[in-house]
């Protein structure tokens, strides 16, 4: 049983690390700020959730797990809020997203 828990938590930790790396790579390589927000969302949701779940499996039913769940709840509340505020501020400052050359801002084909 302990081995099973260890294997499960290692798998979760490795998957979370992989998602963090993917998010960081996207943050570095994507072309404009809106696309980079999309990449940073991977780190904020899946990376955080998987790593915290892996750590919680290592900790078992203790006070540590409660703290981990609290951290997860804080992050899940704050990261969408700050990303929304960031996208709002960027759009209001006149920064237009990159679009496909034949589409306008609503996704309609240009005439």
């Amino acid at each position, binding site marked *: 049983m302990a081995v099973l828990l260890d294997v499960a938590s290692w798998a979760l930790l490795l998957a979370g690390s992989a998602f963090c790396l993917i998010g960081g790579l996207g943050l570095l390589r994507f072309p404009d700020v809106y696309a980079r927000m999309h990449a940073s969302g991977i780190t904020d949701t899946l990376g955080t959730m998987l790593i915290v779940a892996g750590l919680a499996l290592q900790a078992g039913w203790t006070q540590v797990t409660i703290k981990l769940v609290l951290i997860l709840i804080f992050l899940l509340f704050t990261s969408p809020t700050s990303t929304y505020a960031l996208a*709002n501020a960027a*759009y209001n400052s006149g920064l237009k997203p990159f679009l496909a050359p034949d589409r306008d801002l609503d996704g309609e084909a240009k005439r």
Partner: protein
Amino acid sequence: MFTAATIAILVAMGMALARALLGPTVFDRVLAVNSFGTKTVLLIALLGFLSDRPDFLDIGMVYALINFIGTIAVLKFLKFGDLGTPGGADSDSGDAGPQESRSQG
């Protein structure tokens, strides 16, 4: 295994830091610093497990809240040019806010 996850997060933090230094607009930098802060929380939690001191999780919790408040404060400063301004109802409506004249670029 904690070591592998810690190294992966450190590499991802390096990428976010590179974006924060390179970023063409200020919003890229704010986004990169916010992402860096999220990864820092994860790194603190992992370091607590790595060194068998789970008390680090309290620091991680505080860091998560400070990171959020810092991001919102920077964005408010960018929009209003002043942290003392009460944001009010028009702070997120988009078009009605007191837009300061801001030079592009």
